[in-house]
């Protein structure tokens, strides 16, 4: 694939575009910081989602007027669409924990074949805190992990068993990388789709976890 953007950016775009296909019209969606915020750019025609921001509103949108009080969950300037509603942090997490958020899309440091996810700390190195991530993976109806397939050193981020402290246990539904799309099922991890130009061999090589290949792929 010839592209004019740097390979890493291309990877992120591929991931965001594929995640967008998981969303349905009318879904209430919470997007983690970074890559997940790119997802709305790729929504298919006719699919509109309502973005929830855990710092206290539904109806997150692009910045329209300058308002220092209005930021997204990453602390960046934000806007709201018509029909938005503000509330306090308690109510925000009532929505999240109570299953009123249809989909959460968030990044991961590690994910494993049991649906575990680790994305909130690296002991001794980086301890930012979990923020709202633990509530999101516990409460959202569908948890999509959107991340690059491998670490910068080339190691698989999709493991047999997470090694970092967990954000949630058995909570992940879908994993989207620039290599493939996996679903976590009772039978185990299922490879559902290969991204364009990726071979099954490459996916196997880059994935530590054991996975079943979906019948659709063979």
């Amino acid at each position, binding site marked *: 694939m010839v592209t004019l953007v740097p390979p890493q950016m291309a990877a992120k775009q591929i991931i965001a575009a594929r995640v967008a296909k998981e969303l349905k019209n009318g879904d209430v969606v919470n997007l983690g910081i970074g890559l997940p915020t790119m997802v709305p750019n790729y929504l298919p025609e006719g699919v509109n989602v309502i973005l929830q*921001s*855990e*710092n*206290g*509103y539904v109806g997150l949108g692009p910045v329209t007027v300058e*308002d*220092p*009080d*209005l*930021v997204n969950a990453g*602390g960046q300037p*934000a806007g*709201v669409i018509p029909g938005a509603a*503000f*509330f*306090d*942090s*308690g109510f*925000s*997490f009532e929505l*999240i*924990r109570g299953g009123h958020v249809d989909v959460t899309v968030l990044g991961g440091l590690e994910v494993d074949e049991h649906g*575990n996810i680790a994305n909130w700390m690296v002991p*001794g190195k*980086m*301890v*930012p*805190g*979990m*923020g*709202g*991530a*633990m*509530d999101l993976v*516990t*409460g959202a109806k569908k948890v999509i992990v959107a991340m690059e397939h491998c670490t910068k050193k080339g190691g698989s981020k999709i493991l047999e068993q997470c090694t970092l*402290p*967990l*954000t*949630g*246990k*058995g909570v992940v539904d879908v994993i989207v990388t620039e290599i493939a799309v996996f679903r976590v099922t009772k039978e185990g991890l299922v490879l559902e789709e290969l991204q364009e130009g990726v071979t099954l061999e490459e996916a196997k090589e880059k994935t530590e976890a054991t996975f079943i290949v979906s019948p659709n792929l063979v």
Partner: protein
Amino acid sequence: MDKSITMEEVLSIFKDEMTIMVGGFMGVGTPETLVSAVDQSDVKDITLIANDTAFIETGVGPLVVNKKCKKVITSHIGTNPETGRQMIAGELDVELVPQGTLAERIRAGGSGLGGILTPTGVGTAVEEGKEKIKVDGREYLLEKPLRADVALLKAFKADKAGNLVYHSSARNFNPLMAMAADTVIVEVEHIVEVGEIAPDEVITPGILVDKIIVQGGNH
């Protein structure tokens, strides 16, 4: 019953070793004038309860940077590197709490509940040292209530009886903390007469508010 106070009166309220809750999310909805008052006072060994430790120079960040705190109970410290540095150096006790659990623990503290039963954190490091309660076959963590001696809050507007309204995402933890502290001090952009905020629009009723100060200090 005008609840406005001067900055001198505010300062007389703070004591060493106090537990102080401060509203805000990465500094948005944080009462900067009140935080600055604590920061410039001699008060030390505070236990700080806040969603995050904000940034080096804004929000509650300076309280950490200037070593006012012995402990912080919070959901996120990633945007203020000094918090992590002090924690790793053993200079500061940091209790990390999932954001929704932090909100519920404060609400429980303010509403007379014995704690909350949440699925958040089950199977993670968050469950360490906590009681697990099974309800109808599913496990929940028993997370205990949080209260403070003083809550420092930010609202958009107060009437003189202390009824509060907030503005956009600056609401966040402020209404919850108004329930859960012995003394509630609110910094506002505007004070209006009683009756100017419609009863249907009040978010925090004045009975929860003890003191009001206008942003920048009362005159």
